[in-house]
Each structure stands twice: as C-alpha cells, then as structure tokens.
C-alpha cells in the first residue's frame, strides 16, 4: 500500500443531523471510519449512538417521521443518494443487534439467509459460504455437527455469534454492532471481542458499547457522543489517556453517565 496516499474511509459522516419527527437526535456529526479498523461509539444512554449506527445502513428509514440532513458516505458514495438501492446497501453493511435475533429456523438456514436472497446461492457453494461464515464467527467447531438443529437451541452467546456469522455471510464491507455483548456473560463477551479483533483485518467494524474497558480493549478509534453531538473522536489510546475535551474526561473517569 502506498503509505503516502491518504486512506479512503470506509464510512464517512459529513455534517449529518437526524430527527425523529420534531425531536432532533443527532447534530452535525462529522466522523470517519477507516477500513480494517474498529471504531467504538461511546456515550451516555440516549446520546444517539444507536441512531447514528442505524443511519449508516438506513434502518431508520422504517421509522415514520424520520428525517436527516448532511450525508453518510460508504466508500465515497452517499448512502442516502437517490440511486442508492437500500437492499443492496444493507447487503454491503452488516448489522448485529444488542438482543440476538436469530430466525426460528435451523442454524444453517440462518446463515444461508442472506446469500440465498441476495445472490441466489445454492448447493455446494452455499455450504461453503455457511461454513466460512461460521468459522469467521468462531462458531463452526461448536455447531458443525448440528447445522440442521434450531438456532434457538444454542446458548445466548452462541446465538449472538450466529447472528455475526449470518451478517458475515453477505460478505459485508462494514459490520455494525450495537452493544453486541451487553447481555452476555464474561466468557462469551471475551469470545466476541477476540473474534472482532480477528475480523478487522478484513473489514471495517463500528461497535456501540457502554463498556469502556471493552472499547479500550478492542477498538482502534473511539468516538464520544453526548446529547446527540460528537464531542470528540480520536485514537482509542489517546482518547482514554489524554482526552481533549473536558466532557470526555468526565465521562471516561466515571463522573457522569
């Protein structure tokens, strides 16, 4: 790679504001998320982290009265552009939710869902995608003998990794995770953190977390949101040791939030 050339961010928000009806939830967010890195979004409850995350793959489109200004670019193309196909966008941007939500189908069918609807894959090819995705989500060894069993027979931590595998099966360029481990035990949390660190060699990851240690452990960059505004975004190590803003310092030292 040419070191001198500036890296094109995978996701970039430019002066992005967002409203739920009359209520403004995001104010003028400008933020870049580089490829092959993990960006953590932190901040007190209600500050707009999920709103921002869901704006990237346009999951907020389904909310009546939702409105935005500014733009969010995925590889330099505005995801809100008129010619952007939302279905295709969501195919390129994977999302994992706080509460794991596998379909009440088999493990195999869960992972196969995306490739089936998006590229019509079948047979051997599909088997390979399913296996590869489960491996990338560090779940293959645990489920390879029970692919036809219901996904709901798995433990919570396994179900969440299944949801990660399901998102990966689409070969996304970005993976968005909204507090993926907040309802999990420490062991499962650790597995997911480790898996994210391995995945970042292949794609950009944006993770919302309330757990500052977790942000410190897994992320390369951290963005601190407060009351719908981006207070600061920096290299994770720097943000946690020498924050520029006083609000950030107050938050990471646990004085509020």
């Amino acid at each position, binding site marked *: 790679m040419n070191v001198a050339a500036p890296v094109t961010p995978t996701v970039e928000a430019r002066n992005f504001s967002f409203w739920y009806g009359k209520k403004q939830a995001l104010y003028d967010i400008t933020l870049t998320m580089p490829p092959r890195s993990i960006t953590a979004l932190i901040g007190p409850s209600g500050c707009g982290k999920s709103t921002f995350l869901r704006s990237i793959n346009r999951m907020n489109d389904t909310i009546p009265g939702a409105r935005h200004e500014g733009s969010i670019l995925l590889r330099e193309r505005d995801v809100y552009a008129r010619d952007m196909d939302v279905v295709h966008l969501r195919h390129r941007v994977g999302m994992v939710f706080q509460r794991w939500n596998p*379909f009440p*189908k088999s493990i195999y069918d869960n992972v196969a869902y995306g490739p089936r609807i998006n590229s019509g894959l079948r047979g051997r090819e599909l088997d390979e995608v399913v296996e590869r995705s489960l491996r990338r989500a560090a779940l293959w060894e645990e489920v390879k003998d029970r692919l036809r069993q219901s996904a709901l027979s798995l433990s919570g931590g396994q179900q969440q990794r299944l949801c990660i595998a399901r998102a990966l099966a689409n070969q996304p360029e970005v993976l968005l995770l909204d507090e993926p481990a907040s309802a999990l035990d420490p062991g499962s949390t650790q597995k997911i953190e480790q898996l994210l660190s391995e995945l970042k060699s292949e794609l950009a990851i944006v993770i919302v977390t309330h757990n500052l240690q977790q942000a410190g452990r897994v992320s390369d960059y951290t963005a601190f949101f407060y009351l719908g505004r981006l207070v600061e975004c920096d290299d994770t190590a720097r943000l946690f040791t020498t924050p520029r803003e006083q609000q950030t310092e107050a938050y990471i030292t646990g004085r509020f939030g």
Partner: protein
Amino acid sequence: MILAGVAPGDRVYQLAITAFALVVPALLVLIAIAIGVAAWPAFATAGLSFITSSEWNVQAGKFGAAPAIYGTLVSSFIALLLATPLAVGVAIFLSEIAPKWLRQPVAFLVDLLAAIPSVVYGLWGIFFLVPMLREHVVPFLRDTLHLGSTPLFSGPAYGPSMLAAGVILAIMALPYISAVTREVLLAVPRSQRDAALALGATKWEMIWDAVIPYARSGIIGGIILGLGRALGETMAVTMVIGNRPEISASLLAPGYTMASLIANEFTEATSDLHLSALMAVGAVLFTITLIVNAIARWLVWRVASGPRS
C-alpha cells in the same frame, strides 16, 4: 395445601373462586355425559353403520348419518379453502401494508362480518348467492375453465348446493381467521423484522421469510378456529345446502350437514330412538369440534410461548 396460611376472608374468597372455576369444566363434562347417555341407544342400534351408512329411515329404525357427516366436513373444507388465502391476505394487508389511517376502519368492517346474524347470511344466500352461483359462477367454471367434465362440477345445478354452503361458510369464517392472523402478525417482534431487513431483505421477503414463518402456528390456530365456526354453523347452511341426505361427488349437488339434520328433524322427532339418533349426531359433531378446538388452542399456545425447535 394451597389454602394454608391464608386469612379467613381470603380463604372463603379462594374457595368460592375455585368452585366457580371448577364449574365450567364440570359443565363441559356433564354436557358430554348427557349427550353420550342420550345417544347411546342409537349408537347401540346402528353400530358402526351410524357413520358409514347413508340410509336414514326413521320408521325403519335405520340411522346412517354418513351424508351429514360428509356434508359437514366437505362444506367446512371448501370454506377453509376459500377463506384462508383471503383472510390471511387481508390480515397481511392490514398489519403490514395498509397506511395507518386505513387499518382501523377496514379491520372494524372485517370484524363486523362476524356480527351479522347467520339467518341474515342465509337469506342473502338464498336471494343473492345461490342465483349468482347458478347464473354466473357455474357457467364460468364449466364453459370458461372447462371443469364441467370433472366429477366435482358435473351434473345438474339447480341452486342450493354444497358449493353454496361452502361459500357462505367461507364468508362467515373469514373474520375469525383474519382477526387471529392479524393479532399474531402484530405480535411478531420488531427484532425479527429488523434481522431480515438488515440482511438485505425487501419488505416482501421480510414478510414471507421472517414474519409469516414466525407467526405460522398462530395463523394455523386461527384457521382451525374458523374451521370450528364452520363445522357448527347451522342456520345459514341449512338455508342454502338443499338438505338432501345423499353423498354426491358433485359440489353443485345439494347435500346435508349434521347441524342441519338436527335442526330439521328435532321438532318432529317423537320416538325415543329418533331423538337418540339426533343426539348421536350431536355427539359426533361435538367430538369433531372439540378435537378441532383442542388443536387450535395448542397451536396458538405454542406461538404465544415462543417458537421452539
């Protein structure tokens, strides 16, 4: 004991409530026993021929209820065949597609179908449905779709028929199926819809792949509830089915149902055996509806307690 360590007032209250609660199942059992006892002489006389024979001759003491059993099952089956796609379609439209302002009024109108007295359905059947079937639908089935050569649509078509009964029952069962389906569709969690959409599903793919499979057993429960409604319906069916105790392959021929049989003969049943025979028909009908309802409950319970493997 459940009553241990409870204040005296609460105790009386608990006992009363428990007693009331036990009255309902006791009533069900008592009705079943009463019908069973009353039906026994007829079952004993006719034996298995009660459900296999078509000969129903009160004077000769022959009680073969097969045509009525057949008619009940077939008319209800036609009803489900017609009502299910329509009702599920209406429910999907109302819960997923229709604009917000349209949902309540349309749902209300559909629910209202359940409030029309069945004798009014019967009148409508006689004066509108039967002539329409004869003059428009049957010619269409025969001449345009060339179904006249199949046994189902062969033979003369005077008017009252199994088909007319099925259509009327379909309209009557529709609001039940659609109301239950709408409820279970609305109960599908947001997270399931999000999961499908976030993977790149279109709205239709989301509905077909995430919402409906999740709600499936509840929808089946609604269908079976509609079936229960169709099986027991008496008045409207009696008015349009033709009341002829024969088994015919043609849906255009008149038929009979268990409920119509009982309603038609009850006033003229003078001999004990005749009464007993009608009771026996009631017992068969009761058993079938009981089984159908049990299955419906079980399926709805399964969806309410979340899907399992």
